[in-house]
C-alpha cells in the first residue's frame, strides 16, 4: 500500500462515500428520531417524578430516590442488554429501537429528576409561604410560583445531561438498531474499508457539535443571570 494515497483511499474513498451516503443518511434519521423521543419522554418523566417527590409522601419519595440512584449508578449498556435479552424470556417482545428508547428515557428521567428536585429545593421557603398566604393551594403555589423559578436554574445542567444521554443512542448498534454507528460498521465490513466509519464519525460531529456549543452558551448565559 502506497503511503499518502493509501491513507486517503482507506478513509476518504470517493466511490464508497457516494455508495454509502444514503445508508448513513438513513442512520442519521433513525438517530434523530430516537434521540428526539428520548428527550421528550425522559425530561417529562423526570419532571413528573420531581413534582411527585415535592408532595413529600414518604413511601413515594423513597421509591423515586431508589429509582434515581439505580439508574444513575448502572451503565446504560448493561440496562440495554438486560432489557433486550431479558424481556423475551418472560414473554415480552419489544423491537430493538423500543428497547433503546425505553432504557435511555429511564436513564435521562433519573438524572433529570435529581436536577429538577435540586431546583425545587433551591427556591426559598418564604416563596412557598408567601404563595400559600395569597390563597393559592399547594399545587397552585408549585405550578405558578415555585416551578417557574426552579426550572430556570435547571436549564444548563438539563441541557448538558440530555446531550450526554442522547449520544448513547450509539449503544443501539449493539442490539441492531439501524442508527448511524450501525450503518457505518455494517458498511465498513461489507466494503473492507474505513471510509464508512469516517462518514459515521462526521455524521455524529455534524449532529452534536451544534448542541455542544449551544449547551456551553446556555451555561454562560444562565450563570451570568444567576450572578
Amino acid at each position, binding site marked *: 500500500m502506497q503511503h499518502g494515497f493509501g491513507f486517503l483511499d482507506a478513509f476518504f474513498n470517493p466511490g464508497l462515500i457516494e455508495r454509502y451516503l444514503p445508508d448513513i443518511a438513513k442512520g442519521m434519521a433513525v438517530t434523530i428520531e430516537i434521540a428526539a423521543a428520548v428527550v421528550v419522554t425522559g425530561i417529562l418523566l423526570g419532571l413528573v417524578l420531581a413534582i411527585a417527590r415535592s408532595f413529600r409522601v414518604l413511601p413515594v419519595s423513597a421509591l423515586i430516590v431508589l429509582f434515581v440512584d*439505580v439508574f444513575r449508578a448502572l*451503565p446504560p449498556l*448493561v440496562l440495554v442488554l*438486560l432489557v433486550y435479552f431479558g424481556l423475551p424470556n418472560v414473554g415480552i417482545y419489544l423491537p430493538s429501537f423500543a428497547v433503546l428508547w425505553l432504557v435511555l428515557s429511564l436513564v435521562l428521567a433519573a438524572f433529570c429528576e435529581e436536577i429538577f428536585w435540586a431546583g425545587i429545593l433551591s427556591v426559598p421557603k418564604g416563596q412557598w409561604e408567601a404563595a400559600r398566604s395569597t390563597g393559592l393551594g399547594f399545587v397552585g403555589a408549585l405550578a405558578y410560583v415555585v416551578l417557574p423559578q426552579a426550572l430556570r436554574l435547571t436549564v444548563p445542567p438539563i441541557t448538558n445531561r440530555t446531550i450526554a444521554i442522547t449520544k448513547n443512542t*450509539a449503544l443501539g448498534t449493539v442490539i441492531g438498531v439501524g442508527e448511524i454507528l450501525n450503518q457505518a460498521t455494517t458498511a465498513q465490513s461489507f466494503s473492507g474499508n474505513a471510509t464508512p466509519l469516517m462518514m459515521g464519525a462526521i455524521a455524529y*460531529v455534524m449532529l452534536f457539535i451544534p448542541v455542544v456549543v449551544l449547551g456551553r452558551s446556555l451555561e454562560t448565559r444562565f450563570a451570568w443571570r444567576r450572578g
Partner: protein
Amino acid sequence: MEAIVEQFFNIPIMQRALPLLLMGLRQTALICLMVIPLGLAGGLAFALLSRSSLRAVRSAAVVGIDFFRAVPPLVLLIFVYSGLPFAGVRPSPFTAVAIAFFLNTSSYYGEIYRAGIESIGLGQWDAARSTGLTASQTLAYVVLPQAVRNVLPDLVSNTVEVVKLTSIASVVALPELLYSADMARSVTFNSSPLVLAAAIYLVMLWPIVRLVSRLERRIAT
C-alpha cells in the same frame, strides 16, 4: 412471577457465573486504573492549553474539547479499534480502549477544570505573583487547589461516568465485567448473570452516586 425469578434471579446460575464475573471485574478495575489517571492528566493539559496566551493554541484546545465531546465514546472506540488498522496500526482491545477513553474523558475533565480555573478571581493570580511566586507556582499552589475544590462534585461525578463507560469496552471484546456477564448469559440462555453484573456495578457505584448528591448540595448552600 416464577418465570421472572427463574430468568433474572436464578441463584445457581449466578453462583456458576460468579468466578467469571470476578475475573471481568478485575479487568474493569485495571481499565479504570489506567483511564482515570490518564483522563485527569489529559484534562488538565486540555484546560491549561485552552487558557494559553497563544490564540492558535487556545482555539485548537477548545475545538478539540468540543469535538471529542460531540463524538459518542462508542463511535470513537470503534473508530480507533476498527479504523486504525486501515492506517497500518493494529491496536489491541486494551490499547484501543486507552486511546479512545483518553480522548473522550480528557475533554470532559478538561471542561470541568476549565470552569474551576475560571472560578478563581484574577486577584488571586495578582496576589500570588506579587509574593514572588512564578506563574507555574501560582497555578500549582494557589489557583489549582482552590479550583479543584470548587469543581470537586463535577470531577467525582464525571469519574462515576467514566467507570460506567468502561462497559463499552465489551463491544471490542475486552473481557471486562459486562463482557463476561454477557458471555455467561449467552451460554446459559438466562439473564441472571447480567443482573449479577448490574448488582456489582451498583455496589461499586451507589455509594459514590450518594456522595456526589451530598457534595452537590453542600456546595449549593
